């Protein structure tokens, strides 16, 4: 067994060029979260709807009596809508402390004193959320599509609904991007992950409540863009070529989501700095 000196030695090994630090941040974050058994349990539960839908596909394919279980584009739309609950829980679990904990322990000045930009830092943190959120949205939805092909032994459904692949991708991305950017922006505001979690939940419930009040008062759903959840649902409906559930024009829903993400980006640019200027 070689004996290494315990003194300081120059490093003469390889170095990867800058620009890949975000991958290091993402990989370390994913490893850290996966190490939590409770979280793994949550991820397994989040896949329960996939199993139920797989059984539905099996029944519809093999039992003509179960025609009421036949799948359609709406099945995939509904599946993603159901997964939004898990997206919410995982976003809060993983995302609330991503920047807040770094703020609490002054880790930002460690990160940003390394050869990485602020954008890489934020990108790395976003990557962690993307990995887990896509694992409960895009991955199971695409697997459902594959399951349908495998269980039916035919690509007829897929061929007739090829647009489902981009629809699943767009709907998943909208859900994941909105959730990720919003929680990261909130996380950069505080040193307490709990506070961030409560604020994030408050933001979604409050906007939904405001929309509910307006809807009850006016009897119209035109102002659904007031609710983050409703805006995402509206875009999802259109992506799956389903009748929109609200009277809001698609442009208004897209604009609401875009404004929210732009605001989050602006907040992140403002808050993620190695130097805090106190006037």
């Amino acid at each position: 067994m070689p004996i290494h000196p315990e003194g300081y030695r120059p490093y003469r090994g390889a170095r990867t060029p800058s620009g890949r630090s975000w991958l290091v941040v993402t990989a370390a974050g994913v490893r850290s979260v996966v190490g939590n058994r409770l979280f793994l349990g949550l991820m397994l539960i989040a896949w329960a709807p996939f199993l139920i839908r797989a059984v539905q596909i099996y029944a519809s394919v093999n039992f003509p009596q179960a025609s009421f279980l036949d799948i359609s584009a709406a099945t995939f739309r509904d599946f993603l809508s159901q997964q939004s609950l898990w997206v919410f829980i995982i976003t809060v679990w993983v995302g609330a402390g991503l920047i807040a904990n770094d703020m609490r322990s002054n880790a930002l000045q460690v990160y940003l004193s390394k050869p990485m930009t602020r954008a890489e830092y934020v990108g790395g943190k976003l990557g962690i959320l993307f990995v887990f959120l896509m694992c409960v949205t895009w991955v199971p939805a695409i697997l459902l599509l594959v399951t349908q092909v495998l269980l039916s032994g035919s690509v007829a459904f897929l061929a007739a609904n090829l647009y489902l692949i981009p629809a699943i991708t767009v709907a998943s991305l909208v859900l994941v991007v909105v959730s990720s950017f919003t929680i990261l922006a909130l996380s950069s505001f505080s040193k307490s992950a709990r506070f961030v979690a409560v604020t994030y939940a408050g933001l979604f419930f409050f906007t939904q409540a405001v929309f509910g009040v307006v809807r009850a008062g006016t009897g119209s759903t035109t102002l659904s863009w007031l609710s983050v959840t409703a805006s995402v649902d509206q875009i999802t409906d259109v992506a799956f070529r389903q009748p929109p559930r609200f009277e809001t024009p698609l442009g208004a829903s897209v604009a609401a989501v875009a404004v929210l993400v732009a605001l989050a980006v602006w907040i992140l640019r403002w808050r993620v700095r190695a130097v805090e200027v106190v006037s």
Partner: protein
Amino acid sequence: MDPALPLPDPSPTRSVDPVATFDQVGVRYGSQWALNDVTATFPRGAVGLLGPNGAGKSTLIKSLLGLVAPNRGRIEVLGLDAARAALEIRGRVGYMPETDAYIPGMNAVTFVSYCGQLCGLPRADAIQRAHEVLYYTGLGEARYRNVETYSTGMKQRIKLAQALVHDPELLFLDEPTNGMDPKGRDEMLALVRDLAYDKGISLVLSSHVLPDVEYVCRHVVVMDKGQVATYGPIDALKGPKGRVFEVRIKGDEAAFVAVLHAAGLESHRTDEDVMRVFVPEPRSWRDLFVLADQGGMQVRHLRPSVPTLEDVFARAVGEEDRESWTTSTE
């Protein structure tokens, strides 16, 4: 730690000389100039960075790292323009921040190897380097403990370890002995000295503790109110030996200081009840008696002394700032 221990000759460094230059640099926060027309050269080896609170030391270090863009002027680090090659510079320098800074939930090996990977080291190399630098900084036995459970002294050591893991050419150390007990402080200074003189790593040491700077550094840059008050080799700034005297007088001390200044002699108070007076050539200690007599005062204590870094600091920043600095370090 023996402050009188002479500094050894530095081993050949891999860095260019000078390691950093400031050319009329100005950095503004809002309407406040944190650095104002700063021109200085940081030679290879160990350079001390001194100044009272708010003098601009931390801003200067952050400018060197490219974390703060200067509003005017030009900064070069390791021969690179800090404004254009900030990432390359950060890959070749190490930064030990003043405040506690760690990544929550990680043990020391994970934290330091993570920092190595952020600097571009492959994962396996980063882990090996992490073990090495943790042993080197004295954390070998505690390297699997969560960093959040570390004592203040251990947190200082882990900050040094994360700054060293990628084998930088230049180190920025911001108050490396803050909060350490005397033994830990001696060990930290020994490490820093070893890095500078045996391992060939140039470093900029920002500290409130003048003996620490004097123990480690050959050169010093003294900042005051966002400007460079003085810089150069410490020995040259101290002036010739035997020209400083400790003096205690009977009478109006303020009046005596005024008489000294009128005669072109500099003086500053110390924490004891004596003042230190600089007597330039061709004057001698006899002139102090003559001047005291002219002012109607008596010299009750006169002892030749050796110039210290504190004298350099006091002359550079003035009596008022020196007192505020002394208060802040107590």
